[in-house]
């Protein structure tokens, strides 16, 4: 019987490792250790074994059963491993490029605008939007622009025909014409007319000039204009803000200077130059970057704010211009062509 037991193990050792499927193993399990299996059959012969040998023989049967079970487990484990392996595809080549699309990209104008928004947000300026189709009142009259100012010329500003109707853009003055806004300052007027001071707003957006398209001019471009209205706002507050904004955007080495200038809706008015030799393609010592000034009392009077109580400043810059300077882009048209080799350079 001892020989029969070891022959059984030997047979299982020969058979099980080559069984290909789970059912084969299950069938083999029944044959070896099932109720009708060979081991059970041998166990039934225990009665023929002399009594004194039974304990040893019992132990031997147990060992045989464990050995067979281990062989069956191994066979199942092997089959499971094969099954998992079969789920895998061919071996990878980690150097093959992914065929999936390259990551999406944000447009450089968005990157610059959002960075400026976030810099300004830290000091309390939030974004206000306004319509791109405006009326003469919001774009010119309310900003102290004389009736015969060249900026109003049909030569410089796009107008809609007199019969155009824009139900969402109410005319403030009867018979005034609709136009495409030439700056986002119109949003400041809307905000002031709608709300009460204090105001701390920034209006980024698209503006239009009737210009010949070339490396530095575009029929539409983007501006970012800020307005702060409060009590006791001073020139040095304005300088402090723009120092902060431009150094945050372009680096702490950036130097900022104010040059007196003229704008119809600010007094005093300044042009802002910056000196940032670390920027690409900046080869002049001072580069003009934006305009600003203290809100002209006439503008406050026009929107019904008491100019003896309220004061404020406004500033405006071209987003394309800043982006061109930051990234060293030499032609404004790149922004509007959307060549992927351009778009993918910025993130």
């Amino acid at each position, binding site marked *: 019987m001892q020989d029969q037991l070891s022959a059984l193990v030997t047979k299982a050792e020969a058979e099980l490792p080559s069984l290909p499927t789970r059912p084969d193993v299950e069938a083999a399990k029944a044959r070896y250790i099932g109720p009708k299996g060979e081991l059970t059959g041998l166990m039934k012969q225990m009665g023929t074994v002399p009594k004194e040998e039974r304990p040893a023989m019992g132990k031997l049967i147990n060992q045989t059963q464990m050995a067979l079970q281990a062989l069956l487990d191994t066979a199942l484990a092997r089959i499971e491993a094969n099954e998992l392996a079969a789920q895998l595809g061919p071996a990878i080549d980690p150097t093959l490029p992914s065929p999936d699309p390259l990551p999406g990209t944000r447009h450089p104008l968005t990157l610059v605008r959002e960075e400026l928004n976030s810099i300004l947000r830290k000091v309390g300026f939030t974004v206000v*939007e306004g319509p791109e189709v405006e009326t003469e009142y919001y774009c010119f009259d309310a900003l102290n622009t004389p009736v015969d100012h060249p900026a109003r010329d049909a030569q410089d500003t796009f107008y809609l025909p007199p019969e155009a109707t824009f139900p969402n853009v109410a005319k403030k003055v009867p018979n005034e014409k609709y136009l495409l806004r030439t700056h986002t300052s119109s949003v400041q007027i809307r905000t002031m007319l709608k709300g009460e001071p204090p105001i701390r707003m920034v209006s980024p957006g698209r503006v239009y000039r009737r210009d010949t398209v070339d490396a530095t001019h575009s029929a539409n471009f983007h501006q970012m204009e800020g307005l702060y209205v409060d009590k006791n706002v001073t020139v040095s507050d304005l300088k*402090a803000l723009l120092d902060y904004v431009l150094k945050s955007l372009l680096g702490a080495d950036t130097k900022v200077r104010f040059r007196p200038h003229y704008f119809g809706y600010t007094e005093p008015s300044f042009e802002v130059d910056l000196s940032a030799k670390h920027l690409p393609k900046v080869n002049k010592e001072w580069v003009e970057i934006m305009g600003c000034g203290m809100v002209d009392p006439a503008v406050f009077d026009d929107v019904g704010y008491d100019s003896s109580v309220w004061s404020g400043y406004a500033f405006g810059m071209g987003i394309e211009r800043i982006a061109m300077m930051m990234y060293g882009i030499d032609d404004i048209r790149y922004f509007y062509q959307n060549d992927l080799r351009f778009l993918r350079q910025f993130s």
Partner: protein
Amino acid sequence: MKFSRNWLQDYVDLSGLSDEQISEAITFLGFEVEGIEHTGAPQLSDVVVGEVLTRDQHPNADRLSICSVSVGEANGGTKRIVCGAQNYKVGDRVPVALIGAVLPGNFKIKPSKIRGEASEGMMCSGKELQIGDDHSGLMILTNRPEVGTPINDALPEGDVVFDIEITPNRPDCLCHLGAARELAAWFRRDLVYPQAEMQKRGAARPDLLKTLRVDSSEDCPLCTATAISGVKVGPSPVWMQARLSALGIRPINNLVDIGNYVMLEYGQPMHMFDAKALAGASIVVRRAAEGKTLVTLDEKERQLTSDMLVIADAERSVVVAGVMGGEKSGVSEATTDLVLQVAAFRRQSVRATSRKLGLSSDSSYRFERGIDVHSLPEATHRAIALVLEVAGGQVCGETLRVGSDVPWERAVLVSPAWVRSRLGFEVSDDDQRGALEALDLLITREEEIDGGVQWTVRIPSWRSDLDRPIDLVEEILRVHGTAKIPAKTVTGPGLLVEDDPIAQYNRRTSTYLIGQNFNECVTYTLRSKLDTAAWADESAVDPLGLANPFVEDQSHLRPTLIGGLVDSLRLNQSRGNPVAGMFETGRVFISNTKGVQECAAVGFIIREGSDAAWTQREASDFYTAKRLIETIAAEAGIDLVRQPHLATDDGAEAGWQQGQHTLQGNMAYGWTARYGMLDLARLKGLGVTGKVLAGVFAILPERLVKAGKRSRFQPFSLQPAAWRDVALVVDESEAAGDMLKSLTKLARSAAKGFDLEAVGLFDVYRGKGLPDGKKSLAFSLKFRAADRTLTNDEVNKTFTTVLAQVAAKTPYQVRS
């Protein structure tokens, strides 16, 4: 405007100041220096004044002459020089480059043989000496300097020309006196006015000037006319020519040059008539007669209209007032008697005329910006004095004058403490006073008010831009120096305001699309009419047109973002850049019966199928676009699944592929979504290869204002779910959404005591086993109870009810 340093020096002492210092002063005074140019001859050694003694034909060349030229004893007496120029004669004095001279361009003068004849130097043109462009011949020194004089001593001194942009609020600086006044303030130096001697006047000459009349006094508040007889027309003096030339103005003759000179000095344009050309010896300022024409100095015939102001004689218009003189009435070489007419014209009038004629001049530029009527008499006086000095003659009688001469008086009250409160930093009373006085803004009165000082500041007539205290803040800061604004830390109390909903919306949707591997684009708002017509009904295109487009292909407001994106796709394809997806956020303009509404919009395009890659990915299709647009709409609070699909025959068929796109919402809803495939034929026509999916969602800004409701937690069952599948056979035209809706309704009411949790659509089948024109949709019903495990029996019972209901209440056929 260009300014000459030499000229400015007449009125303000600029000695000891470098050009850079002057340029910086101009910059900080508030004027942009656009260029600095040096004029005059470069320093030349061994170039001297010579006189041509003899001129003989070169034996071997028709075009050459052999000259003997005296260059002075110190330079070796007389030189033999071969010369190719033709414009000189014996006795002329010319610049001569001696042996050893080095001319500009590193051109060394050596002894040479020209066609066999020896030449010991070179007679020079202006261009060869780099003093002008004249290369037509030798530079004839008409003022006949001493022979042998080094050429630099014989030529007018070089000059520095500053090209300065004068801001529109400062017409007083459109002249040298004005600019000098600013520099005098900056450097705190004295301003010296030009001296004009009072002239003795002769008897009046009614034959030269009888009448001065102004018919349109509202457009011409002041006009003067002065007759001067016996003038001699000729070249103006070298110093005057040099100054005009330095500023790029071609000297004509002494009279014309004086007109220009005084304009550049005082900013006052003026006109000189040949007295003989003035019919009736009269000058009349009036409106033009409609339909008449006038040939202006530039030899162009100008059509006049009745709203244009002209200067006429007794018979006809002779000058477009303030803009340009007529061809015939001006002074010429033959003039002996002249009438000097000086006027102030209303800005708007000159501007309107200049624009209407498409004609602008130095004169109209100054009138449009405004001249100081109070310095008109002084400028007139100066011009008369210069005429007498340069061209001789005699003033005939009094200057005729028409117009009001209201004395100028203006004062502004300001307190230095208030100025400091506007500036936000310390500028002492004394410094403020110093700045004001430097600009001729004199403090005429000083009083104590409310414990502080208040100044009465007198505003001079040329500074009519100053009339409020805030204007003086700017003047003080300008002269004090903006570089002195101290640095400080920015402060910003929060105002508890959120960014505009549009900005937030664009941020969210673009972040989503970039996460889906889209490239953000920015395209032009203005599109061609043709492109606009592809996306909107014919009747909706015209309202989008501009009144004054600049170029034809940018004539209409865009009704969609897709046109620009397709252009970008095409550009990339033509440049060999494979495109997957592109999007833009921006405004679009949608016209309907109410008018045009400006909407915030998000649009995208997807080039269907990937370009060559080593393994194929699943292609995008309509349903890709659908998921994207649903998500974009959901960000605006619109649940597209619940929204009906509308007829798509609204005029956008040219742009979208028929039967392959859909429309949800329109401007009556306040938003609209359109998505699907773009028209294949049109894309092909545009040169775009491949199929393109697109979607655009537009919404009125006011619809974005509402903030979404905060979500509430919904409890859900922890019990196991049970599924039953059913396939329904229907006509091809049946919409899956409708089936889903009715099956859900039936199943929900059939489930008693537990819930229908979801109905999923997991297969759409056509073909073998189904009749033509039929399709089979397979749905999976998911049931679950809140409190127990469902038994097979109760689920089966419910499912049987569902199938019976489907058979009874719907045209759907349950597929076995």
